[in-house]
């Protein structure tokens, strides 16, 4: 009996998964090649090959795009994989992210002297996982992609073995990720139990033809899937790993993680919930609504109090996830296309931002305190401009893709009647603008000459009352104080720059710097990780660096020197800024692209 059973293997259409194959195969080739070349050349060869591989998969994805727009999407490999505009857009996005990450990582690897091409290989593997998530048409395949993505990421997080924080981050990520994977698989099992299939199309088909009298099992499965995805996209309250992991991972990896993991997870999230469980939207929309609200508020609110820039950007990415949830919450094709556009814009902003952060972090990847950014504009104006543009884009400033991204998801929410959610989203964006602008203002404020406080280095000015001792935990009305000092000559103050004569151009920003300083003093929390039961996790120890308020004013002189900017990092940052600004001025092509991608969406 057994002998006669033939296990039918599906026909495999390799063209359908060509981008994934290019990445995975490229990774294997790279591993082989890297072991053959001399140690000194490994990083360079790795970068070169990775860029070529990423460009190749980008080319293949673009070819797929032409193919898909020509004759529509299709499913392959026994309907386990789908190729449509949606999946191709994810492929393109992930390819871009790999390319940029390779450029950024090159300088990092040379600087830190940790390993050769392994980082690139892991990034390629992880990226293929994200692509698989984007094109999965079966819950099992989604899970497969999720694991390929995650396991490589766990190793990437620990990549800088010299940093204790890196190892801690990886371990935390691994334990929590495994936990959420387990939850996710359990969800698949329950959904299979309720519907008899793990194929997305068949689930949708089943649900459209049957009315479940007892749908508790299905809803429980749905919940578990939702939690699994929410963990990956870092939605509150499943976000807690994010700050620790983002902070601990090597900075280029953090950028990659923020872009690719989020893109892959959201792609699968959108596809599964819109195509399979579209009919149940009345059940899951309120949950997404609530998740979006807390994600937006917690992300923005906690980012405000961060002193470590990487931690701040981690919370900011949580806030961004809240915005993408807005698109999902709309539960329409329009919302999906807005979410995709958001992810596309976000990828370039976040990789560019972390590229700058990894440069500023200096050898050891440790200098991430806000104070190290003070006066960056004077030391390295071009770098500061690029970072400022990327930050403004994240804040949603006009003439950047950030504006259009936020505008569209908010419009999608409004169109769907979720006006309160839209209002909360905009309020959180306003709150978020504060910490982006704080960093921008810091970069454009004068660096303390010899560790002195701001007030001391400006003789002749009114003594700005930010002597360290006077800054209590929180004094009511920091802005009021600033106002009171500016008060005596409200009108003359406006003419002041002309009178002051030969002051540098940023002299006019002193007042705003003073205000920001006060707000900082009032808001920043020194170490977020508190000690419990006398134990101190390593991340808490790392957080203590930077210490109390005075140290914002007096950073280590070594940390306010110029940082070297490798050419490849400069290219990556330049590309990110260019995409952000060009498509901010001319939004239509990208918007149309995302829109077409969802029009071609084959459920």
């Amino acid at each position: 009996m057994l002998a006669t059973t033939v296990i039918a293997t599906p026909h495999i259409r390799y063209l359908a998964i060509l981008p994934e194959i290019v990445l995975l195969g490229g990774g294997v080739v790279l591993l082989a090649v890297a072991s053959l070349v001399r140690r000194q050349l490994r990083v360079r060869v790795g970068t070169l090959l990775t860029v070529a591989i990423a460009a190749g998969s980008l080319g293949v994805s673009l070819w797929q795009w032409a193919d898909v727009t020509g004759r529509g999407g299709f499913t392959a490999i026994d309907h386990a994989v789908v190729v449509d505009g949606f999946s191709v857009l994810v492929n393109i996005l992930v390819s871009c992210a790999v390319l940029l990450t390779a450029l950024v990582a090159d300088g990092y690897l040379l600087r830190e002297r940790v390993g050769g091409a392994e980082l690139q290989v892991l990034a390629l593997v992880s990226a293929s996982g994200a692509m698989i998530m984007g094109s999965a048409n079966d819950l099992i395949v989604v899970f497969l992609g999720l694991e390929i993505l995650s396991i490589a990421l766990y190793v990437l997080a620990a990549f800088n073995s010299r940093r204790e924080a890196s190892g801690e981050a990886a371990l935390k990520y691994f334990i929590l990720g495994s936990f959420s994977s387990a939850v996710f698989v359990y969800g698949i099992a329950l959904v299979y139990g309720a519907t008899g299939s793990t194929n997305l199309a068949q689930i949708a088909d089943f649900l459209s033809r049957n009315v479940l009298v007892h749908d508790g099992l299905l809803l429980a499965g749905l919940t578990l899937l939702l939690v699994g995805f929410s963990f990956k996209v870092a939605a509150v309250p499943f976000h807690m790993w994010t700050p620790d992991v983002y902070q601990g991972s090597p900075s280029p990896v953090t950028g990659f993680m923020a872009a690719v993991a989020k893109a892959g997870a959201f792609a699968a999230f959108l596809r599964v919930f819109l195509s399979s469980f579209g009919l149940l939207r009345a059940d899951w929309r309120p949950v997404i609504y609530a998740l979006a609200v807390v994600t937006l508020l917690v992300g923005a609110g906690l980012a405000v109090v961060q002193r470590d820039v990487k931690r701040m950007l981690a919370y900011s990415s949580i806030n961004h996830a809240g915005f993408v949830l807005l698109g999902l919450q709309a539960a329409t094709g329009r919302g999906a296309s807005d979410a995709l556009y958001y992810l596309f814009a976000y990828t370039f902003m976040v990789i560019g931002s972390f590229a700058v952060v990894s440069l500023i972090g200096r050898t050891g990847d440790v200098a991430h305190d806000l104070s190290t950014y003070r006066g960056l504009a004077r030391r390295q104006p071009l770098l500061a401009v690029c970072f400022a543009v990327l930050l403004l884009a994240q804040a949603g400033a006009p003439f950047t893709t950030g504006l259009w991204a936020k505008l569209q998801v908010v419009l999608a929410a409004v169109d769907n009647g979720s006006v309160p959610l839209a209002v909360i989203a905009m309020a959180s964006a306003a709150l978020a603008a504060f910490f982006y602008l704080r960093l921008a203002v810091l970069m454009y404020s004068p660096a303390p000459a010899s560790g002195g406080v701001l007030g001391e280095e400006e003789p002749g000015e009114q003594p700005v009352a930010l002597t360290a001792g006077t800054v209590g935990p929180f004094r009511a009305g920091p802005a009021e104080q600033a106002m009171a000092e500016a008060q005596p000559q409200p009108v003359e103050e406006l003419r002041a720059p002309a009178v002051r004569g030969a002051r540098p151009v940023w002299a006019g920003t002193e007042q705003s710097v003073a205000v920001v300083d006060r707000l900082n003093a009032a808001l920043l929390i020194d170490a977020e990780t508190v000690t419990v039961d006398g134990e101190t996790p390593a991340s808490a120890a790392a957080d203590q660096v930077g210490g109390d308020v005075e140290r914002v004013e007096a950073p280590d002189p070594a940390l306010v020197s110029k940082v070297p900017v490798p050419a490849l990092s400069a290219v990556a940052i330049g590309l990110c800024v260019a995409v952000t600004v060009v498509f901010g001025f001319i939004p239509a092509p990208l918007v149309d692209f995302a829109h077409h991608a969802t029009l071609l969406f084959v459920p």
Partner: protein
Amino acid sequence: MLHAAFLMPLLPLAGFVVLLAVGRRVGDPWAGWIGTVAVAGSFAAACVTLIGLVHQPATARELTCSVSCGTGAASHAFFTWIPVGGLQVKAAILLDPLSMTMCVFVTGVSMLIHLYSIGYMQRDRDYSKFFVYLNLFVFSMLVLVLANNFLVTFVGWEGVGVCSYWLVSFWFHRDSAASAGKKAFIYNRVGDVGFLIAVFLIFSKTGTLTYLEVFAHRHLLAGGGAATAAVLLLFLAATGKSAQIPLFNWLPDAMEGPTPVSALIHAATMVTAGVYLLCRANPLLAMSSAGMWVIAVIGGVTAFVAATIACTQQDIKKGLAFSTVSQIGYMVLAVGTGAYVAAIFLMVAHAFYKGLLFLGAGSVIHGLEDEQDMKRMGALRRWMPWTFGTFLFAWLAIAAVPPFSGFWAKGDILSNVYAKNLPLYALALLTAFLTAYYMSRIFYLTFTGKARWQEPAPDGSPAHHKPHESPWVMRLPLVVLAFCAVFAGLIDLPWAHSVSLAAWLDPVFGNRLFDSHQSASVQIALAVADGVVAVAALLVAWGLWRRRVDRPELEPDFLQRVWYWDNLYDAVIGRPGQVMARTFATVVDARVIDGAVNGTAALVRSTAARVRRLQTGFVRNYVLGVALGLVAILVFMVSRSWS
């Protein structure tokens, strides 16, 4: 050939980018030449496009299909600029006889003034920056003119506004220049608000911003006074940009900018943008006779008021500035009476002769080392023959002496106004007399009489050196413009309307809007009246100003101080505004806004202080968070399934 249209705005933009990148390095004079060549290329492209458009059959030049650019496509867009819901804004150009006419004279005059600036701005500290702004200005002006929808026009509108601001306060180390730039900008903002609200109104009623579609659906604006509101709001925008009552005071102050700027922006091109906007929106104007009346009356009154002020100015550039206000008043009057062709005719002629007058004045100022007071000039015809000769033609043209261009253009407007309304005609004729009078005064004081610059000034400043004629790069534009100022009348002679500007612009305006049914004898009588008035004014001024310099009885304080207009604004708006601002600074800003900021800060701080306790750094706590969230959602979901 119509494809050359795209080069028109792109070449100055390229010039702007190149100058921004390398301008400072190549410096004086190559930066100037780069800018000039870019604009000259734009002018060449405009000429090529013009030829292409002329070769189109007359029906194909009509508004409805003029966007095709010969490709057969229904519209020719660079790209869709803003796609937001129902609003699809395309960055497309609208090429029709009106925009074409504007482009040709804008690029032509710009080219000449760029050339002139090469000489005028010599040895300036920020030589290359000047051309950066100037090229950006030409680009913005062409965007304004060529846009096929209100929003892109607004982009150009703001672009020229900001260039005007930068250029007026180009020498910002002088306090007067810095505040003049601010004044220009703020006055214009008032108008811009009108523009924006008009755009909102039009979009809310018609659902589109593209000119052709708005005009096709203009019936949606009918009723409820929407059309009148839109027209008046657009006119408010025009009063700002084109310096009409009540927003005209900024233009005289704008003379703080370098003289080529005054010639290009504040005489020939930007200040006529308001008139262009009204002409562009003529199908809307036709829907509101009340709006048209307001426009006509404001135009006529502005022309008269500005002319009276121009009679008493001592500063040569301020005199010319009020003259510009007055001349634009004529154009607005023409628009208000429905005589759009006449308005465009005067706009073109005015660009030539007023540009020339400013450039001539600049030449004089250049020759006398920055002396602008006419009472310290005189007898310059002997030292600056080229400037004198070309200024002479410009003077006769603006004074409307036959057969120079001003005579035909102004005659066209006057005969139209005569057919529409007699009191307005009387006012316009009186203004024509004043125009010839004040221009003659300026001319005599500057070029004839005694050489007063040889004597020390009454206030003790020393005598000037012997004036020198300007270099050839400055003289050549003078000669070309003088030629144009003399012969520009040929483009629309009254007995040849069927083959001239009127016929060319007919697809845009249509003679349906206005048709002055006047017999030949009435027309001749009107023309004779114009000529007589002009010559009489010349003679009166000759008698009064040939030998005398001071005639206090003819220069009352009331007129010198601009009818106390600035004082009025200061009392009614400026001072209360300051009080208000101070109140807001001390009460609203310090208490309410800062209170809100501090309150938010306190809230965030205290909440975050609590929430952060959850972020312990321990995996066990994180897992607990995930589990609790899971349970909460599960409870919600299961409760739904049971309910």
